[in-house]
């Protein structure tokens, strides 16, 4: 029976500020809006694409995707209604695409609509999306919580530059999801109630939901597992033993799942020395004096005990990895697993070989008397600082000195071309952060490491090839990937690309980071999904008796 389980309390320690994922790419906003807005299809907890508002996923086999990979045709299931009772039509789909592709709209999900040429309305429930290039994986538009469908009627006046003016619509969008917003307080709390027109008359189980935001991860965890004030707490980035103690509170349990998020150290292939003029500092014109030597880079990697890092920092929410792409299985390489074992002696030998001999204070020097000193930066975050300390110590043991820096994350990830502290500018020798790719296909992700993709002054330091790696062979292989549709073949090429990066040691992967969330013992039906919104199946959540 719909609403029989009463009230649900969810806590997000980062507070949602808007209910429209197209205007904010922030995870908290995307997930909050997923209670209301839904895509045509989404990934389930094991990373498989499942139909959501459609009956089946279009593929080449079932004819949904054209042979030339240039178009995809979606058909909405019958009887899907907006929360206001009107039917969902193909016009809504076309409008959604137009909304996000409007050049002045500043759509946060533009990538999902990249290369879309047009959205053709075939009939009331069918649209065909035409691409300008062949898309081996055409599941960008209308797929996942990041690209849900908006109601054309509600957003009609909100196109382009007017998007931010539609506060009412942005805070209280009409969706097809299990809940509708009754009160939205930006960066604070959202109150929702069951959608009266939800397609399954028995769902959702809960009549009302409160999604509270703000605070810190620790007290969010406490509220679920220790005091029982809350039913669900999102993304508990806490030390494993802290989570463990909280779990002893007995009110709730932590749950975890893995995606593609990899905590890694990026190695700067270019020289970040402040003595260089700004136009060549940290650009490919100035190769790194120390790290250009692969033996040094490899030694950096070999000195790290990834098992221990996981134990200290993530516990059950992490596992050691030697790959940039740890999942899905078909893309996960096994060729680099040697790195799982720490090898300090091997690292030392490599450094010796590279001409770095131990100096008086235990730090290596080369023939010119240069000390082996590296600047090591990352964003401010308790676990990262522990990692920095540990890695600093291991590197010291093999004779490398690391100067640590942590930068406020809003600066570090801010991308302000004026700031010297952004991760793109990379005014350091090595830096640590985590990244992943949306969905299950790493093509675009791996494409970042092609020549010419590096941030540099001429592109306002915008670019994703953070370590400034450049290898024509790699670029050629990637081009091949872009033209291959066969999944097995794509897996092979993807693994090969991953291996090239790994074996060049330009990226030193550390931990495959999972997601830890917690739910109350009295909350059933939680399936932690790292490929889509954590709240993807909130309609199915229910109250456990007792």
């Amino acid at each position, binding site marked *: 029976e719909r609403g029989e389980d009463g009230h649900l309390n969810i806590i997000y320690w980062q507070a949602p500020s808007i209910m429209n994922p197209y205007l904010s790419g922030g995870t908290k906003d995307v997930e909050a809006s997923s209670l209301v807005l839904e895509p045509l299809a989404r990934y389930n907890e094991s990373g498989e694409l499942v139909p959501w508002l459609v009956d089946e996923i279009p593929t080449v086999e079932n004819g949904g995707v054209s042979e030339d990979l240039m178009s995809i045709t979606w058909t909405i299931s019958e009887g899907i209604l907006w929360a206001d009772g009107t039917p969902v039509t193909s016009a809504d789909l076309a409008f959604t695409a137009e909304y996000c592709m409007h050049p002045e709209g500043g759509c946060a999900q533009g990538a999902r609509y990249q290369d879309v040429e047009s959205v053709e309305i075939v009939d009331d429930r069918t649209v065909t999306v035409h691409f300008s290039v062949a898309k081996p994986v055409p599941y960008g538009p209308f797929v996942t919580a990041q690209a849900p469908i908006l109601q054309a009627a509600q957003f009609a006046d909100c196109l382009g530059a007017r998007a931010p003016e539609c506060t009412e619509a942005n805070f209280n969008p009409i969706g097809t999801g299990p809940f509708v917003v009754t009160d939205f307080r930006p960066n604070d709390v959202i109150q929702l109630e069951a959608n009266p027109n939800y397609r399954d008359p028995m769902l959702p189980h809960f009549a009302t939901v409160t999604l509270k935001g703000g605070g810190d991860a620790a007290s969010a965890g406490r509220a679920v597992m220790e005091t029982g004030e809350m039913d669900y707490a999102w993304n508990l980035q806490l030390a494993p033993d802290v989570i463990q103690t909280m779990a002893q509170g007995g009110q709730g349990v932590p749950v975890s799942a893995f995606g593609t998020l990899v905590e890694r150290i990026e190695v700067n292939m270019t020289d970040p020395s402040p003595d260089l003029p700004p136009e060549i500092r940290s650009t490919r014109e100035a190769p790194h004096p120390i790290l250009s030597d692969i033996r040094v880079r490899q030694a950096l990697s070999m000195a790290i005990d990834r098992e221990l890092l996981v134990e200290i920092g993530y516990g059950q929410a992490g596992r050691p990895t030697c790959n940039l792409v740890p999942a899905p299985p078909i893309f996960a390489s096994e060729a680099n697993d040697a790195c799982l074992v720490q090898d300090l002696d091997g690292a030392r030998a490599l450094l010796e070989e590279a001409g770095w001999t131990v100096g008086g204070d235990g730090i290596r020097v080369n023939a010119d008397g240069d000390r082996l000193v590296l600047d090591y930066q990352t964003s401010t975050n308790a676990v990262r600082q522990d990692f*920095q300390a540990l890695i*600093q110590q291991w590197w010291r043991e093999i004779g490398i000195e690391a100067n640590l820096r942590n930068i406020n994350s809003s600066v570090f990830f801010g991308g302000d071309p004026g*700031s010297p502290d952004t991760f793109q500018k990379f005014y350091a020798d090595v830096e640590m952060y985590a990244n992943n790719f949306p969905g299950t296909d790493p093509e675009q992700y791996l494409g970042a490491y092609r020549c010419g993709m590096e941030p540099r002054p001429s592109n306002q330091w915008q670019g994703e090839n953070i370590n400034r790696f450049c290898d024509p062979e790699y670029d050629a292989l990637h081009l091949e990937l872009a033209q291959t549709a066969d999944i097995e073949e794509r897996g092979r090429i993807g693994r090969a690309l991953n291996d090239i990066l790994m074996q060049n040691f330009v990226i030193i992967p550390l931990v495959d980071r999972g997601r830890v969330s917690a739910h109350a013992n009295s909350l059933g039906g939680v399936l932690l999904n790292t490929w889509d919104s954590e709240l993807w199946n909130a309609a199915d959540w229910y109250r456990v008796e007792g």
Partner: protein
Amino acid sequence: MTDAATPPSPETARIRPPRNQWWDVWDQFKIHRGALAGSVVFLAIVIFCFVGPLVWPYDATYIDIRSRNQGMSWAHPFGTDQLGRDIMARMMSGGQVSLAVGIVAMALAMLIGTGIGVLAGYFRRIDGLLMRMTDLFLALPLLPLLLVMSMLFRQPLSAAFGVETGMFLLIVTAIGITSWMPTARVVRGDVLALKEREYVLAARSIGTPPRRLILRHVVPNVLSPVMVSATLMIATAIITESALSFLGLGFPPDFPTWGRLVNDGIDYLQQYPSRAMLPGVFISLTVLSVNYIGDGLRDALDPRIRGR
């Protein structure tokens, strides 16, 4: 003529050897029990932080991963943290930074505050301007200011003084330039009154130019309110630095400060309460003792009280 009630007769004058007035201050100070206790505690903390590392075998950043999360023991009197670093050693080096930040930031704030207060109080013409500037600084949000400062100056400073000193200067400056305003107000008020004192007039009648007049006659006589706000400032600066460390705007991560230790420890409040409590207690003790010292100083520097 308040003192004329107890003028020293010639004989008593001869008995007492000439001595510095600071001895009188000290005489008064040492009978203030709170101030004395405060000084002892503060001194103990300073010794702990600055002499301790010389005798204590562990390094604050040395990681001994096998012995992590240990409780109190003889080897590690305060236990170890989640990476097996000795907390006592971290407390010591953290204290060095916190105390240094507190004292230097205080000195800076006092310098600016006294300077501006004196100028505003003494020179009528720039008074309005300086007071509006005080308003401006009161309204400045500290965090964006810090971000801007660290963007503009971190690199040149690190290049010139090394990472840690550079960062130290940056933080100290940020705290200093955002906390001088109350002092400036107090000093200005005092200078306005002082300016009308006869000894200032006397100095002018001698022909002392304003610069020396200020340095010789005005500044020394506003010192006692300044001293009092100075002690309060040390306390606030230590707390502000802690808050900054918390926000990631503080020192490099391998550079423990009390504030960072508290914040790191708060997550473990349940399992290892001492980890947050210890630095918290140290912060509080320092602030407390400094406050008591300030109390005593105020009494000791006030001639009305000392004259009794």
